[in-house]
């Protein structure tokens, strides 16, 4: 499954033109079968911009809302989640994650009772760019989290060693952030030709090939690339369909990109 990240791309402030562009991206996302939109209080105006798009689109029922709690304060988390909910304009969030492991103990202690009370469907925890995997692993082993989010892509593969197998073992859903290293990989590869064997997977771009690499890992649930372009969101979502690479082809993709 391919979701929609909002880091940087949806932080457009009160700019009416750019807000409408974000709403167009969301419209294309839902039309192509997308469901999960992920945001955070850390992402500037991304939350109200998501809320603007949802309102404009008539609150698509397919939406799976993934938010985060991001505050040092152990006591301010619930108020922040309520503020985020108002920005989105949703009755409740499907998923609330502790952002970048910040004050994770008190926030998890707050979120688990919220889940029991039905105020949130799932609880998760995130990190990015390979940071604090040891602590994340410890939390995955000891806490009943439903989702975990971390960075994983064709060149950053540390998660394959422990986190992904542990998630599969414990039945924890995995959200993959920074699938293109915040655009660095697509930028680096944009003038390189796709390998001929990529056609067997039905891909027409590096972005699709790299997403297929991620999505074909058996422990990965969803990748959340961020984009400002309607054509890119369609391209990204189409990566979840069609032939997926087998383990040998995954190794081939990784080796090929590493060699470029």
């Amino acid at each position, binding site marked *: 499954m391919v979701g929609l990240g909002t880091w*940087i*791309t949806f*932080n*457009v*402030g*009160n*700019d009416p*033109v*750019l807000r409408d562009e974000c709403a167009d991206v969301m419209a294309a996302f839902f039309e192509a079968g997308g469901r999960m939109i992920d945001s955070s209080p*850390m*992402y*500037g*105006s991304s939350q109200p911009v998501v809320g603007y798009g949802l309102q404009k689109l008539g609150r698509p029922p397919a939406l799976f809302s993934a938010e985060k709690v991001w505050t040092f304060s152990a006591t301010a988390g619930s108020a922040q989640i309520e503020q985020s909910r108002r920005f989105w304009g949703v009755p409740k969030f499907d998923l609330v994650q502790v952002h970048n*492991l910040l004050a994770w103990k008190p926030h998890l202690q707050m979120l688990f009772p919220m889940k029991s009370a039905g105020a949130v469907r799932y609880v998760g925890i995130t990190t990015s*760019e390979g*940071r*604090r995997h040891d602590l994340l692993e410890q939390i995955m082993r000891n806490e009943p989290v439903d989702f975990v989010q971390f960075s994983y892509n064709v060149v950053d593969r540390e998660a394959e060693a422990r986190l992904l197998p542990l998630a599969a073992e414990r039945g924890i859903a995995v959200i993959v952030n920074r699938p293109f290293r*915040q655009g660095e990989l697509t930028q680096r590869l944009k003038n390189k030709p796709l390998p001929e064997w990529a056609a067997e997977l039905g891909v027409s771009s590096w972005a699709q090939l790299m997403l297929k690499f991620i999505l074909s890992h058996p422990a990965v649930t969803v990748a959340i690339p961020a984009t*400002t372009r309607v054509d890119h969101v369609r391209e990204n979502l189409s990566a979840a369909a069609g032939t997926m690479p087998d383990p040998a082809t995954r190794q081939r993709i990784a080796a090929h990109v590493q060699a470029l």
Partner: protein
Amino acid sequence: MSEWWTYRAEDFLLFSPRVYWRMFELHNATLWPLHVVTLATGLLIILLIAWRPETWARWIALILAILWIFVGWSFLWSRYATINWAAAYIAPGFFVEGALLLASSLLDGLAFDRRRPAGWIGYLILGFAIAGQPLLAPLQGRGWAASEVFGIAPDPMAIATLGVVLLARGRLLPWLLPIPVLWCLMSGMTLATMGEPQAWAPYGAVALTAMAWIWTIIRQRGSLPAA
């Protein structure tokens, strides 16, 4: 923040260059034609410092105080904070600078001394902030609509204040310097992280100010009679 050494400047950049520069377009469109007034005020400050430095010092400080508070409120607090939550914490710094300038005005704490060599660097920096900075947007292909104008945008405000401080004397000067310097360093870092060449403008203003300041101190110590 854990493992802080693993973070890069890019990790703290919350917005894209396109959003950043469009923010100036929207800000300019909202405030136009106030730019004519603020630019005229900037030119007036240069002329007053050049021709009537003794008479108008407290009024120059008052004008700068009003503009710092205005830019802090209209740009940082009301606009920039929508894409950068840190701006809401920086805006009070602009209000503090305004209050310090207001105190300088009320206490007659500034006097302009255009004979010092540092003063010529002050004119250069002040002249750039008022006449040069607005040209950077069109020169870099962003068009006049995205220009950063003195009294409207924070960079020319801070850079112009550095120029004024170099042209002035007075016991309050050390208090007036830190906030414009810190803003220039933060703005330069933001621009450099976005890969914008005009990061040299705030960085250059700080470097020139530091050089002129140090030069002045060395000259003052050199001219002191031996104990």
